[in-house]
């Protein structure tokens, strides 16, 4: 922290010990520095002080003047000359704390033996450490109806609630989702929802985690385990590029729950509900466990590993081959694919972008993103944030929380170039810069930023021709930083690993001879292919043209691409080796299927959008499944082109030797936007993004989670609604030549030319149903 201004330190005495802490530090946290634990419930370091539970009372004097009564140490910052006596040295503080504890317990049920929180309960623990053991209360405890569902995934037991308001404060202050509030008054006060509106916050699970009693429980974990039977392993979230630190709790080889981990520089102590509650896919009954090989009859049948590897190696050697690796690979696995393409297949035909993408994007990634170091901390310091092709709450929820924190704490100004005003941007009080889908570029160019601004660019920016060129130019002209925030957890790592046709590992341009020499030296090979690799779309086209005959495909959903029919046909046509955890559209068409380990079963790391390594160990031990990296090594061995990457550690060590590319970067050739389409009366331009909770494959089987997904709707503007005679709830049929979807209308703030629908939600899987997702002209009729 060499750049930060010197922090003023204040020295105070707590229980006779001096401690120096930064000005503004609360007494309760200064005491923690000394190892003095003052009991507390409402206090939470990331929530505003509230002083409600009164458990943390201490005696204070300042420069010889004593406060007449004990004070809440969670609300008072240290001051020079302050002497604090906690329960350890003040009989008054000790009695005050015991008195409060007794009052907290008079209405708390003694159902600890059947309570999920039992064994890890702050109330239970502190009643033992700071209570008086016996209650003098002889009356009947307050009764409420036992747990009520406040959403499909969170249950509320009001009898257990001690009204610390952590949950309601979290929902309001951190998530800006005030769906739960304190209701009623006095002894009847209780947490609750408005009866018709469930607690549909993407962040609701955090309230379960920070509840200091068992009042809020998660439907998926309720009554499943005792905390002392769980083995906890630090892990990283595989669901998006936010990069949350996580904890995975396993009992007898099965993940029972996942919690947000603490990482002040990334997710603080929060995560989203998808990260917390979408993990059953790992234990889904249809998990692949054995290699499969397609036999003479055309059926996939179980095979031994040596047999399957031999078939795979033979097929890949016999054809011109390419690699399609999905955005969910770990950094080490992506590195394995990257090296496999170059060393074993002798090609640069590799692309991790198993989604809508463009050549403009590939240049942008090589020019502006690879190796970049913009971080969460930079958001904290930014003067303005511009969102382009990026909807933070849906596409990178922890980025949303960080933006929200800055909006709330220091009025950070946020602007979004988009066609529809999103719920998230509304919550961020963001400026909505309204554009027709496809026309982003011109608008971006006109935004005023400074060198302290940041442009947060989502992967969807690639869907609008010229948008990324405009972003690059805007950053050049203003000095603003760029941060590219893809949706998937592995994309940034895959980019850095060179799992893309124009870059080798470490951001080295394929076209640069010196860069190729760097990598060839590291890999001890004589040379590397120098022809620019194909993109995903080009690889599929090349299969159809016959230029490519084999594909090795890992973690790809072909339905995510621009032309899924063509992708499926290519998979039918080519010799395909699939590395997957579960049967998919790819494995159905593959010639060899090799089962791989899920994230919780292996070690490795992701690079989050910042490029920060989020490494993790296997949480579930004893899985027979191997990592992609290990299997790639085995295939390469079988092909006679060893990768020498037998383990994740080996890969990590090799990656660490990559160093930084200091040569010339790929420069962008600006791309022009497409012409504005002329629309007839029933035509709209399609706009969409994926919701956080939708039909994503990793959310399979999570019904409780799915219950909090946002409604599937089609959004049109008030003007268009009026001219079409459409009101909220009327059904709209959106059609293309491929097909149609029919959705209830919602009239909201959106560009008159645009219609918005969720990209991959139940009843609205646009790429499959319509064949397009953004920028295309669609026909809309009211039915």
């Amino acid at each position, binding site marked *: 922290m060499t750049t930060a201004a010197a922090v003023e330190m204040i020295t105070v005495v707590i229980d006779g010990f001096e401690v120096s802490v930064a000005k503004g530090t609360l007494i309760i946290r200064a005491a923690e520095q000394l190892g003095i634990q003052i009991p507390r419930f409402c206090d939470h370091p990331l929530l505003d002080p509230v002083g409600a539970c009164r458990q943390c009372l201490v005696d204070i004097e300042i420069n010889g003047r004593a406060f007449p009564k004990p004070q809440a140490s969670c609300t008072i910052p240290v001051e020079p000359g302050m002497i604090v006596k906690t329960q350890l040295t003040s009989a008054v503080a000790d009695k005050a704390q015991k008195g409060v504890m007794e009052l907290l317990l008079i209405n708390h049920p003694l159902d600890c033996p059947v309570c999920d929180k039992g064994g890890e309960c702050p109330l239970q623990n502190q009643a033992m450490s700071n209570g008086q053991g016996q209650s003098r209360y002889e009356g009947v405890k307050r009764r409420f109806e036992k747990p009520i569902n406040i959403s499909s995934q969170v249950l509320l037991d009001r009898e257990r609630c001690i009204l610390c308001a952590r949950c309601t404060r979290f929902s309001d202050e951190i998530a800006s989702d*005030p769906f739960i509030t304190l209701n009623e008054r006095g002894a009847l006060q209780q947490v*609750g929802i*408005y009866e018709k*509106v469930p607690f549909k916050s993407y962040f609701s699970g955090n309230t379960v985690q920070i509840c200091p009693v068992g009042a809020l429980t998660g439907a998926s974990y309720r009554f499943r385990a005792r905390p002392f039977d769980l083995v906890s392993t630090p892990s990283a979230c595989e669901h998006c590029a936010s990069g949350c630190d996580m904890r995975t709790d396993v009992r007898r080889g099965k993940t029972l729950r996942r919690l947000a981990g603490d990482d002040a520089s990334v997710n603080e102590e929060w995560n989203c509900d998808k990260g917390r509650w979408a993990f059953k896919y790992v234990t889904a009954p249809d998990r692949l466990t054995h290699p499969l090989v397609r036999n003479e009859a055309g059926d996939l049948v179980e095979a031994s590993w040596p047999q399957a590897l031999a078939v795979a190696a033979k097929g890949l050697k016999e054809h011109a081959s390419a690699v399609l690796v999905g955005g969910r690979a770990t950094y080490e696995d992506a590195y394995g694919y990257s090296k496999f393409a170059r060393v074993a297949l002798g090609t640069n035909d590799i692309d991790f972008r198993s989604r809508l993408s463009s050549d403009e994007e590939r240049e942008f990634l090589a020019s502006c993103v690879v190796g970049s170091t913009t971080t969460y901390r930079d958001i904290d310091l930014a003067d303005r944030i511009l969102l382009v092709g990026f909807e933070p709450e849906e596409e990178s929820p922890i980025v949303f929380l960080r933006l929200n924190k800055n909006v709330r704490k220091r009025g950070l100004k946020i602007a979004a170039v988009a066609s529809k005003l999103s719920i998230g941007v509304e919550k961020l009080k963001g400026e909505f810069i309204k554009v027709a889908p496809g026309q982003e570029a011109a608008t971006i160019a006109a935004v005023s930023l400074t060198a302290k601004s940041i442009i947060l660019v989502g992967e969807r920016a690639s869907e609008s021709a010229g948008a990324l060129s405009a972003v690059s130019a805007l950053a050049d002209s203003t000095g603003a930083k760029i941060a590219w925030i893809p949706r998937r957890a592995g994309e940034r790592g895959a980019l850095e690993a060179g799992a893309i046709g124009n870059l080798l590992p470490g951001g080295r341009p394929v076209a640069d001879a010196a860069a190729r020499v760097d990598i060839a030296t590291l890999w001890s090979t004589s040379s590397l292919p120098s022809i620019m690799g194909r993109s995903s779309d080009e690889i599929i086209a090349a299969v159809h043209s016959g230029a490519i005959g084999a594909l090795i495909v890992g973690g790809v959903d072909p339905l995510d691409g621009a032309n899924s029919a063509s992708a499926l046909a290519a998979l039918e046509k080519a010799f395909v080796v699939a590395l997957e955890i579960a049967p998919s559209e790819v494995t159905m068409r593959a010639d060899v299927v090799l089962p791989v380990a899920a994230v919780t079963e292996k070690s490795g790391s992701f690079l989050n959008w910042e490029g920060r390594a989020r490494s993790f160990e296997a949480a579930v031990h004893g899985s027979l499944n191997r990592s992609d990296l290990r299997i790639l090594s085995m295939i390469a061995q079988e092909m006679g082109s060893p990768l020498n990457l037998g383990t994740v550690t080996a890969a990590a060590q090799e990656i660490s030797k990559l160093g930084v590319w200091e040569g010339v970067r790929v420069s962008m050739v600006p791309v022009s936007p497409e012409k504005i389409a002329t629309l007839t009366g029933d035509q709209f331009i399609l706009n969409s993004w994926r919701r956080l909770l939708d039909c994503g494959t990793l959310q399979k089987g999570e019904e409780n989670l799915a219950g909090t997904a946002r409604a599937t709707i089609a959004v049109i503007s008030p003007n268009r609604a009026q001219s079409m005679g459409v009101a909220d709830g009327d059904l709209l049929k959106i059609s293309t030549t491929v097909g149609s979807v029919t959705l209830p209308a919602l009239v909201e703030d959106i560009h008159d030319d645009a219609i918005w629908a969720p990209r991959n939600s139940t009843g609205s899987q646009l790429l499959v149903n319509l064949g397009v997702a953004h920028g295309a002209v669609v026909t809309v009729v009211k039915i």
Partner: protein
Amino acid sequence: MAYSSEDLATMDSIIKRYPRSRSAIMPLLHFVQSRIGYVNGEGIELIAKLLTLESAEVSAVATFYTQYKRSPVGEYHVGVCTNTLCAVMGGDAIFAGLKEHLGVENNGVTADGKVSLEHIECNAACDYAPVVMANWEFYDNQSVASSKELVDSMRSGNPKPPTRGPNILVTWKEASAVLAGINDGKANEGVQAGEPTLLGLKLWKEGK
């Protein structure tokens, strides 16, 4: 929709009274009571929409304050002060008498919908104890008998006027509109003060 365009215009004018719109929650809730008689879901949702809040935020406020009712009250809502001073001075007896007389419990409504009964806290008229309120108008120095006559007059459709209030007792809904800040033109009706209020002044004029 229970609200006319005129109602919506009034609600808009209530919001415009304040520098920040959220401040209008309380008068808007009073206004909902003036139209519906109590705070129902439609009212909460409407206020949430007008103020761009979540319904939960509005219901959190509505449930905090005892004057906002969750179910219909009578046309005349009778509150008997049973805080210590009034209780001792006769409020307890009055409340017991009215419960028996009306055949309702606390927060009950008579079957004809005319009268509802609630025991209330100190209503700032202690020098007139025991005090009974009806639609939050003062009925001073009540007795068991006088309070029974009072509710009988309400049930017969001809309520006795308040001791210190307008010439004719307004209905619950009409009173709620006053509390929403709408001037009903009755401010000049009724006495300026009762005898106890003027006692000190009278004694001073007598030279005390």
